[in-house]
């Protein structure tokens, strides 16, 4: 008992630092959300609550300002399309890289990891140059932005899925093969369901990364119609801006958190079911 107490006491200042950090990391964002509900034009102090910058103001609220609208739709469109392309390609790539043995496979594996350590500005510049010098036939704007986002997020998917594949191991598929399943049946009926939670985690990460991306979208943006929310926030700070920017950011924050929470719920359900299946499989083997 004494041991427990003394350990607890020593950790106290660490606990204080940790909770102060958590407060520091989230409080500014909460204040920004509060400012989005401002009735006045001030973006530094809170006056009185209103939804003026969401829909009340007939010229510059999120609901009425077309450029803010467009930015929001562009961001969501990019994120959803990016999710739908990067996730399947990444899952297949992870399974492939995990099992493909050969001289070229090491090279492919390195190629997959390099984008993770490449600063985003290198991505932005390289894609900007390639789309203006080489792939000149592609329409600029959302198409090239999407191609860029997929390239940037693909490796995240592979890393997440590979981690899960390593944890699963090969015994379940081997059991399925012993029971007469073909290689692809084992993959489809055993491995893919077990990868479910990891696939959902990838979808979440890709969505959030795409929504968050500023550098690639900005380098590949071709004008006001291809602006995304981060570009809008970035360029809005210089011009005399209003709390409408805070409102825009808050809407995106709520959308992202809802998406994450939903995916989290689905993942939890899948995982408990997966564990159930796994324990059944354990019994059969």
């Amino acid at each position: 008992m004494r041991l427990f107490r003394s350990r607890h006491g020593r950790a106290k200042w660490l606990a204080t630092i940790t909770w102060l950090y958590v407060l520091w990391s989230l409080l500014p964002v909460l204040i920004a959300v509060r400012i989005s509900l401002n009735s006045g034009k001030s973006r530094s102090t809170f006056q009185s609550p209103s939804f003026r910058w969401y829909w009340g103001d007939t010229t510059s609220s999120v609901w009425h300002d077309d450029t803010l609208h467009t930015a929001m739709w562009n961001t969501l469109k990019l994120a959803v399309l990016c999710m739908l392309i990067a996730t399947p390609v990444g899952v297949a790539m992870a399974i492939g890289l995990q099992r493909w043995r050969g001289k070229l496979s090491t090279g492919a594996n390195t190629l997959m990891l390099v984008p993770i350590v490449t600063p985003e500005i290198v991505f932005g510049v390289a894609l900007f140059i390639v789309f203006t010098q080489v792939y000149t036939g592609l329409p600029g704007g959302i198409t090239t932005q999407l191609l860029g986002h997929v390239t940037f997020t693909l490796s995240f998917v592979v890393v997440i899925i590979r981690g899960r594949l390593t944890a699963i191991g090969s015994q379940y598929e081997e059991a399925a093969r012993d029971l007469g399943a073909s290689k692809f049946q084992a993959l489809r009926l055993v491995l893919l369901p077990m990868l479910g939670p990891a696939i959902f985690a990838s979808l979440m990460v890709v969505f959030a990364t795409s929504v968050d991306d500023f550098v690639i979208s900005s380098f590949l943006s071709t004008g006001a119609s291809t602006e995304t929310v981060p570009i809008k926030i970035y360029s809005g700070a210089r011009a005399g801006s209003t709390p409408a920017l805070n409102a825009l950011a808050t809407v995106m924050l709520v959308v992202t958190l809802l998406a994450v929470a939903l995916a989290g719920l689905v993942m939890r359900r899948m995982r408990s079911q997966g564990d159930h299946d796994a324990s059944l499989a354990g019994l059969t083997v």
Partner: protein
Amino acid sequence: MSSPSVVQIDPTGGRPPRTTTWAGFALPGVGWLIAFFVVPVYAVMAVAFGSVDPILRTPQPAWNPLAWDFSAMSSLLDRVFGGDLGKVFIRTFSFVFLALAGCIAIGYPVAYFVARKASRSRSMLLALLVLPFWISYLMRMLAWTNLLQQDGYVNQVLQWFQVMDEPRNWLDGDWPTVVIGLVYGYVPFFILPLYSALERIDGRLIEAGRDLGASSFQTFVRITLPLSVPGLMAASVITILPMFGDYYTNSYLTSGSPRTEMVGNQIEFFLRGSSQPQTGASLVLVLMVFLFVLMVYYLRTTMKAQRESER
């Protein structure tokens, strides 16, 4: 895989497992990365070592490495070593170094506490540590531009505590603002990898230290800290790399003041602001050479860990 005993009981009769199907699975991803990562990076080199149309000022990329012209690069290197760009590089390094120091000072105790000391509150703390990942980076910066206005809350609080008499103009090219912004922006990316490294340390080693009479401070300094060095390195590298390419944090928090310009701002300026893509492309290559060691370090440790986990 290739140990003889395994081959003997292999039902396929010793045939090496066919892996071409699996290569096919990886193919779309590999093709994608070649088309939209390898080719673009090569295009940067072709533009940097190519020429510029004398009239239209458009870049003429040189696709054949034998025809590469290094004159633009050498004049750029003159500007980096001793010229105007040298100052920008030194400033970038100082900002990144200070911000990393800040990340370690804040992030290490937090990661250590959550990984090794927090028991009841751990899952909640972890959720809170991950939360900033789901909040847009620029929204987090927007929050600071709200806080740091002349009549903003930071000045109000500091004046209330009588730290300062006059409100400070934080957003006017102040370097401490940039460092605070970088630490705030990147510390979540630092904490999580460090957390997972600290959490993996075998608790029995720490207990053994305590059993052998070391104080908790001694066990920390002689066991936990040395064992956390690889995790600390990995976390540092993964935060430093994007910071070196950052150009939006500083310009956002200082309204684009030239006094806080970093390498990334120059790159963006050459490519987007003043259409000098050749200079911009060369500067990207210089930055990549500077970061090469860090990138290789991270790749090697990641691949080693991958091999060990799959053994």
